[in-house]
């Protein structure tokens, strides 16, 4: 049997390149360079390894601005077979609830024969780790998060994961959704030649809201139950205490002011000075 895997991925801003308005502590996200979210790369690597062993077709799927096509090209260079880009200004501002709804709609329409959906366990920007589990709900299939190892067995998949100090072995029915942790499945590099070839290939489908049969009320910020009130840099707002003087004096000042907090962290009492 030949499997069909769908790998969901997200383009995230490169953290070292974050264009920062240091006065307001705000991020100029519009100016940031994008990259494939690291955990999504691990998910793709897991899919490619399964493809090598069992034979499969891999579709990579992302929702984002037009430039998110770059990460789909990179995925093709790594070993994916085709890509789907969901892009539409009306899709912007979607929270995890609406993102998982939109991705599920694309999967049921474009990849109805899918066996396994693989996602990264979390993104480096919003870090919610919610889209994978919500996608499983939306598709009404099995779902397991933080998977470290996958072993396909016809209509089920055997999974290993670490969760809360337990090593778990789980048998999951197919079709299903897994989110992949970043301990194993170290991603391969896409070769330059592979990248060049990937940019020439005609294997990316671009779909907008209408193409998914969705109205503006069902997607993006409009449909999202959560509202972000404010995003700020805690560093920019931090009350910063500055200590100066000899090494002996600053250490005494430090332990006088923060001795309790340090004692709590080390789980031992500190005698007062003197």
């Amino acid at each position, binding site marked *: 049997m030949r499997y069909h895997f769908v790998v969901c991925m997200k383009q995230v801003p490169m*953290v*070292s390149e*974050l264009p920062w308005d240091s006065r307001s*502590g705000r*991020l100029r996200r519009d100016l940031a360079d994008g990259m494939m979210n690291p955990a999504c790369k691990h998910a793709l690597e897991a899919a490619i390894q399964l493809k090598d062993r069992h034979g499969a077709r891999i579709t990579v799927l992302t929702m984002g601005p037009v430039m998110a096509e770059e990460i789909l090209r990179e995925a093709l260079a790594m070993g994916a077979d085709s890509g789907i880009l969901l892009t539409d200004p009306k899709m912007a501002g979607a929270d*995890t*609830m609406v993102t998982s709804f939109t991705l599920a709609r694309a999967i049921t329409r474009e990849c109805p024969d899918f066996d396994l959906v693989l996602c990264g366990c979390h993104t*480096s920007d919003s870090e*919610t*780790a*919610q*889209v994978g589990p*919500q996608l499983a*709900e939306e598709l009404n299939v*099995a*779902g*397991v998060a933080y998977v470290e190892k996958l072993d396909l067995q016809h209509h089920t998949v*055997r999974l290993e994961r*670490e*969760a809360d100090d*337990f*090593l*778990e*072995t*789980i*048998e*999951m029915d197919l079709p299903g959704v897994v989110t992949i942790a970043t301990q194993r499945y170290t991603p391969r590099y896409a070769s330059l030649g592979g990248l060049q070839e990937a940019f020439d290939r005609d294997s990316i489908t671009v779909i907008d809201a209408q193409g998914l049969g969705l109205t503006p009320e069902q997607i993006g910020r409009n449909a999202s*139950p*959560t*509202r*972000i*009130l*404010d*995003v700020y*840099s*805690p*560093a920019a707002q*931090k009350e*910063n*205490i*500055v*200590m*100066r003087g000899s*090494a002996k004096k*600053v*250490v005494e000042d*430090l332990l006088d*002011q*923060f001795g309790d907090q*340090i004692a*709590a*962290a*080390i*789980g*031992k*009492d*500190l*005698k*007062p*000075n003197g």
Partner: protein
Amino acid sequence: MRRFQNSIWVYGDYRNYFQNRVTLQLLARAVELAPEIDADVCAVIFGHSVDDFVGEYIAHGAQKVYVIDHPDLKTYSSETHAALLTHLSRRFSPEIILIGATDFGRELAPRVAKRLGTGLTADCIRLSIDDNGLLIQTAPAFGGNLLAKTVTPACRPQMATVRPGTFQELPHNDDAVGDIIPVTMPEDLPVPRARLMRSERIPKRAQRLEDAQVVVCGGRGMGSKTKFKKLFELARLLGGEVGATRPVVYSNWIAHDALVGQAGKHVHPQVLFSFGVSGAIQHTAAIADADLIVAINKNPEAPMMKMADTAIVADANQVCSSLIRELKRRIRE
């Protein structure tokens, strides 16, 4: 007369209790928030023979505990718990549901939110109530470099997962009384499509940098490989671990697995000491979650000093020696 009493629910996550205290911590915060929206504080728990936990929840602030106790609930399954929590929430309509951001909680919560069609904020580190009675949920993004405040204006319940250790549990109160509300197991519970075959507790391993409660980070400002070694003595005194910046790792002052940064370990200790670190964003992105940051650097303008809670303008190496001496004198064993 109001038909419904508002309520704040805390999901009873008891796997790994006694180490896992997050349910008690959330009850404590719920007790503080409840008067602002005139709500009861309730715990919900699913399992088999869970009376001890029910008692603990009441002793730590729960006024009501909803209990589904059934032999089929012996294994912890997020699929089953999601079905049960959804069922109870539909029946009793809580205003807020708080869930500990354990691995289990972070898998469970999004499934429940999806079924209830409501909003969810992940891994909150602050919770408060605004003037309109909405729950303001503050959570980190970009490795703690940014904090986002989120609300769920219209959908109910308002749901959040909350990072363990964020709030202090209340002292155990033996005299506390609470209502225990047994709920019968729904009959139409679906058979889980993901089945736990085996579960072993992972043997306790040597403390890892990323789990340490105290981290001592060193940069090139420590001066030399020999001087850098002092940080190990300091870490030993503090029961902590040593981390390093990229230049230090490249200079072979310490092994590569001690790298703290975007490409290395992310740490979230209670206290982080930063000796002679200038603070490139790849490094600061990986430490921003620390509760207290103490930075020591000769240059007061270094980015690391700007993001520290306490910036000590001095020679990192001298302060390290002085701190070791002073701690040896003051720590009561």
